[in-house]
């Protein structure tokens, strides 16, 4: 901005905080939201700014009048709860690595970027597998928004992954895919470029680990990071393989 230098007490918000406030308020464009989202995943200070602003603005919501929803809503929620989903230690550990808490909220918007610009990607294998075989995973952020979708065909041992991240939102980082079976030990599946789909053979030895209930995660890494056997950067999105 062409403003004079910021005086000590500040007559404007610092650029990072202004951006965080704008993200919490919701005035950024879709690509800017995705970019802010990815920044929150790797910069705790920025995420804290967004959370603080979300908390400052939330009383506008708390001041709204309460309205009782239909009686049918709770039974629908209860039916949709995944069995024992919150129990496992491995699941907790992995979610613990995933980004921000309230950020979710301010943040839940990253995936919408793509969803509003094009219809949701339908993942389909080149040839239909035998019925009931295909496993599917939707990888979501802590805000519950899908950033990646994956499908695994155990018969052909092929994994198809699509990134819903807008290309160019974070040119200085790469997105690394991980398979996390029941024992919680991660296995790298290579990189996935923003906005692309890729079909890859499941590496030898991992095919038997890619079962229903195993997780697929994506971490945000520096391109020149040394070889690592677990994510170094933050886990931006995670989801479980389930039968379709």
């Amino acid at each position, binding site marked *: 901005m062409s403003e004079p230098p910021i005086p000590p007490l*500040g*007559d*404007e*918000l610092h650029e990072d905080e*202004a951006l965080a*406030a*704008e993200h919490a*308020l*919701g*005035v*950024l*464009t879709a690509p800017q939201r995705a970019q802010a989202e990815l920044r929150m995943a790797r910069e705790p200070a920025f995420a804290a700014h967004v959370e603080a*602003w*979300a*908390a*400052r*603005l*939330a*009383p*506008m*919501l*708390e*001041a*709204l*009048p*309460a*309205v*009782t*929803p*239909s009686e*049918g*809503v*709770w039974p*629908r*929620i*209860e039916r*949709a*709860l995944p069995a*024992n*989903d*919150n*129990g496992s230690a491995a699941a*907790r550990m992995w*979610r*613990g690595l995933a980004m*921000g*808490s*309230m950020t*979710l*909220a*301010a943040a*839940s*918007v990253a995936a*919408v970027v793509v*969803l*509003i610009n094009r219809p949701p990607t339908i993942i389909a294998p080149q040839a239909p597998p035998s019925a009931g075989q295909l496993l599917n995973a939707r990888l979501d952020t*802590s*805000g*519950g*928004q899908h950033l990646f979708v994956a499908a695994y065909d155990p018969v052909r041992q092929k994994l198809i992954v699509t990134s819903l991240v807008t290309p160019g939102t974070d040119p200085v980082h790469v997105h690394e895919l991980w398979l996390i079976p029941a024992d919680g030990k991660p296995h790298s599946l290579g990189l996935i470029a923003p906005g692309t789909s890729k079909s890859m053979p499941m590496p030898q030895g991992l095919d038997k680990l890619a079962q229903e209930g195993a997780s697929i995660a994506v971490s945000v890494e520096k391109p020149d990071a040394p070889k690592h056997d677990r994510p170094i950067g933050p886990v931006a999105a995670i989801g479980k393989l389930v039968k379709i």
Partner: protein
Amino acid sequence: MAATAASDPLAELLPRIAAGDRAALRQLYQATSSKLFGVCLRILSNRDESEDVLQEVYLTIWRRADRFEASRASVMTWISTIARNRAIDRLRARGPLAYADQIDELEIADDAPRAEALLEAAQSGEALGKCLSELDERTEKVIRTAFFEGLTYEALAHRMEAPLGTVKSWIRRGLLKLKGCLER
């Protein structure tokens, strides 16, 4: 605003929900669903869609309860922010056309709930409502519109018939004043 764990009766439910306790989620639902439904309805103006979003909100809480930190926000702040953002996502997903229609409807119906909310805020001695009302009317309106409709700067500029840079400056200055007022 952000209550501490000791004064927040809902805070003990979150660790139980994170551990997979459905009864705890049900308790949270009973205590908070009408507030969160009010949030969804204010943003979406449609009962069916609001109930869909409400369901998503509690499923999100179920999955993310372990991310809640009582030291940083009250449970109500945390979950109502989730509800608002999910409802805004839904609003944006309707697409630009449906979105434009929505805007006109909302503007007409806007005054009553807003006045009511302000009154309620004032009665509960709530700081944000007071600080918002200290802003000039135009700035308050543009901040509330952005917050409840998820409008980008471009869309706000169009709505307010003002240049983009001007709207951006109103909002940034407004946010700065709000922060200052809340810290007083």
